[in-house]
């Protein structure tokens, strides 16, 4: 029976691969000729060209356009019809008595968004890394129905940010589920999305809930790559669990933790969708973050200001480039360490 199955599988494989082999034969001669003419480096360029073309059209070209927009003003939408204003839009964004006091700035909402985003990044990243680590540690243990629990924590990652925002809005609004529970427990309901501090806290909690599964998965992979014999040796030595965590788990998990840290930082700077649905940037401007500011100035206002929105997005992009370079540096360092081992 097994032989029959193997025979069928082999034949099926051969049938699938036959066109590939045929294509390879057809293109072999022209590709060899191309390689003779262009050399190995030329062939690399040839194979990379389609990817570079897509990257150029969808990333580089919009980036250049965005930079050009940031140097224009006026109500017209198309670049050719807009007035060149040089660095005026950047000047307007940076026109401040004191950057620590948004009220002293011409574009006070931009600076409110900057400081809100900074506070959000610091608090959300710290909480995200901590919760992801704890979740990964728990899910790495021999639990009953472990796969089920892993799915439970990963499930919110699959939800659309809009759905996440709406679900939590229903829970947190004045007559939402949470206040019903508070009331049933004899407490006083709180207007979670109207009180400044609660709304900001809710924004952090919801974004952590929505994304922690993804980062926990990265850490879980790191935990499972730690050799078991290290733990067995520690157990034989009678080492206390906390010491095992600090001396074995954490150092060996450090590369994954760094990746998680940088990815979380990048994502936190870009925060928009779920918080926009959840709080709309309120109460007041207490959850107005940079991306929402850019969206509102560039798209949502009746009198759009694409120049100012582009300038703000270029500044935000610069921050993201720095964070991405850090991530690349970390990835390279991890790679080199791996080779040295």
């Amino acid at each position, binding site marked *: 029976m097994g032989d029959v199955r193997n025979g069928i599988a082999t034949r099926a494989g051969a049938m699938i691969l036959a066109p590939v082999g045929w294509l390879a034969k057809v293109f072999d001669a022209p590709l060899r000729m191309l390689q003779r003419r262009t050399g190995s480096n030329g062939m690399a360029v040839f194979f990379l060209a389609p990817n570079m073309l897509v990257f150029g059209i969808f990333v580089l070209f919009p980036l250049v356009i965005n930079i050009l927009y940031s140097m224009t*003003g*006026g*109500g*017209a*939408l*198309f670049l050719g019809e807009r*007035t060149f*204003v040089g660095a005026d839009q950047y000047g307007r964004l940076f026109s401040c008595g004191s950057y620590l006091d948004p*009220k002293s700035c*011409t574009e*006070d*909402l931009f600076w409110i968004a900057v400081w809100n985003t900074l506070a959000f990044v610091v608090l959300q990243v710290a909480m995200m890394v901590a919760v992801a680590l704890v979740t990964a540690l728990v899910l790495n243990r021999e639990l009953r129905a472990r796969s089920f629990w892993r799915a439970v924590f990963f499930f919110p990652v699959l939800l*659309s940010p*809009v759905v996440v925002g709406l679900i939590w809005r229903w829970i947190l*609004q*004045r007559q939402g589920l949470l206040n019903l529970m508070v009331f049933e427990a004899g407490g006083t309901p709180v*207007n979670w*999305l*109207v009180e*400044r501090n609660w*709304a900001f806290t809710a924004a952090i909690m919801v974004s952590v809930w929505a994304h922690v599964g993804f980062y926990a998965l990265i850490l879980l992979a790191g935990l499972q790559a730690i050799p078991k014999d290290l733990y067995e040796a520690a157990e034989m030595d009678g080492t206390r669990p906390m010491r095992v965590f600090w001396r074995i788990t954490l150092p060996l998990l450090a590369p994954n933790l760094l990746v998680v840290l940088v990815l979380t930082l990048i994502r936190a700077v870009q925060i*928009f*969708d779920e918080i*926009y*649905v959840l*709080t*709309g*940037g*309120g*109460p*007041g*401007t*207490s*959850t*107005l973050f940079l991306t*929402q500011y850019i*969206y*509102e100035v560039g*798209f*949502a*206002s*009746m*009198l*759009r*200001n694409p*120049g*100012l929105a582009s300038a703000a997005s270029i500044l935000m992009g610069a921050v993201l480039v720095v964070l991405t370079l850090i991530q690349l540096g970390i990835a390279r360092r991890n790679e080199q360490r791996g080779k040295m081992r």
Partner: protein
Amino acid sequence: MRMNSIILGLSAGLLSSTAFAGDVRVMWYSDGVEGEVIQDLLNRFMKDNPDINVILDNVAYKVVQEQLPVELEAGRGPDIARVTNIKELADHWLDLTPVVADPAYWQTNFGDQFDWMRPDGSKIIPGFMTQITLTGGFVNKTLFEQAGVPIPADTATWDEWVDAAGKVQQSQQLNAAFAIDRSGHRISAANVSYGANYIGGDRLPAPIDAGTKAFAEKLVNWVADGRMNKEIWVSASGTTYRAGADDFINGQIAYYYSGSWQVANLASKIGKNFDWVATGSPCGTAACTGMPGGAALVAVKYTKNPAEVGKVMDFLGREDIMREFTERTLFLPAHKGVLAGKIDYKTDDENVKASLEAFLKASGKIAPNAAALPAWKWGTPVYGALVTRISQVMAGELKLDEAFVRIDEDIKAQVAEASK
């Protein structure tokens, strides 16, 4: 939300770029049942005109607000669109004069609102208003009766209305006495009632005046003392729109200031839960005015089929068709002939009939400063600045005086930018 808008916009854009001879694409958004009604009417038109294929693209309101302007700037778009930001986009509308059967009929019946939809000084026929809207209040009669509080008279001031609603709030232990939609357009009615005039001598925005300041101060105080529902205005930033309709529908406020377009929505959702009625607009020191506005059906000048567009517009603008549309959608009509005749709204709901009559009555009390705003191109930056800054005051981020300075600066900056 943003992705949905983008996808809908792209779809609409793609669809609008694939018109064939004889095709007429209509971009349409709905607040209530008007999408079904217009489809029904268009089906009738196509039956009588088999050579013209009218395609109705039902899109979200956000698509009309955010995606349509981009399409129009690119010289594309649908053949006909239902829009509310009619004045800002006025340069893109087709002059229907050469393509409609009887331009004089259009001038007579829709002419009063043409200036709302065409560039200043222009004499074109751009389309017609599918509905006239008027801001105004709604009162929960059942809550007032239960509280034993008399409903204020037509001539009652904003203070008197809020005091009365406050008494109902206390008696019925409501979360708030009343709510106003988070919209600059809505509070502008009250501002004008207190003497505000937004339009300067040069037709540019004037610095905000005592009328606007007076009502803004009241609004902030009403939020602070818990009589106005804080959530509607404080729970968002920027120009984000928030309606207070749900609180009214759920019987959690005694008084709600919104507009005539809410009538069908309230009727369908409140049902027989409680009695309610529209009450026109409260008075200030200068007037008792609501803000007029509405949605227009306009032809787009980039159409490849202007003759067919003219036939569709002629059909939809007919008096009998406008009357049917008005009666089935429970809207206030713009058509003069329909207004002059008897309107038999298709509803058994007495609350609805009374409300629509109240709005029709209130439409005769519109103050000149309010009547001038729909045809003024700088209305939207003024509305946006008012909402953004006043809600910051309510949230405790700005003082009123600081907000007034910011409002003027915001408007000035936006006008300067748009004028470059």
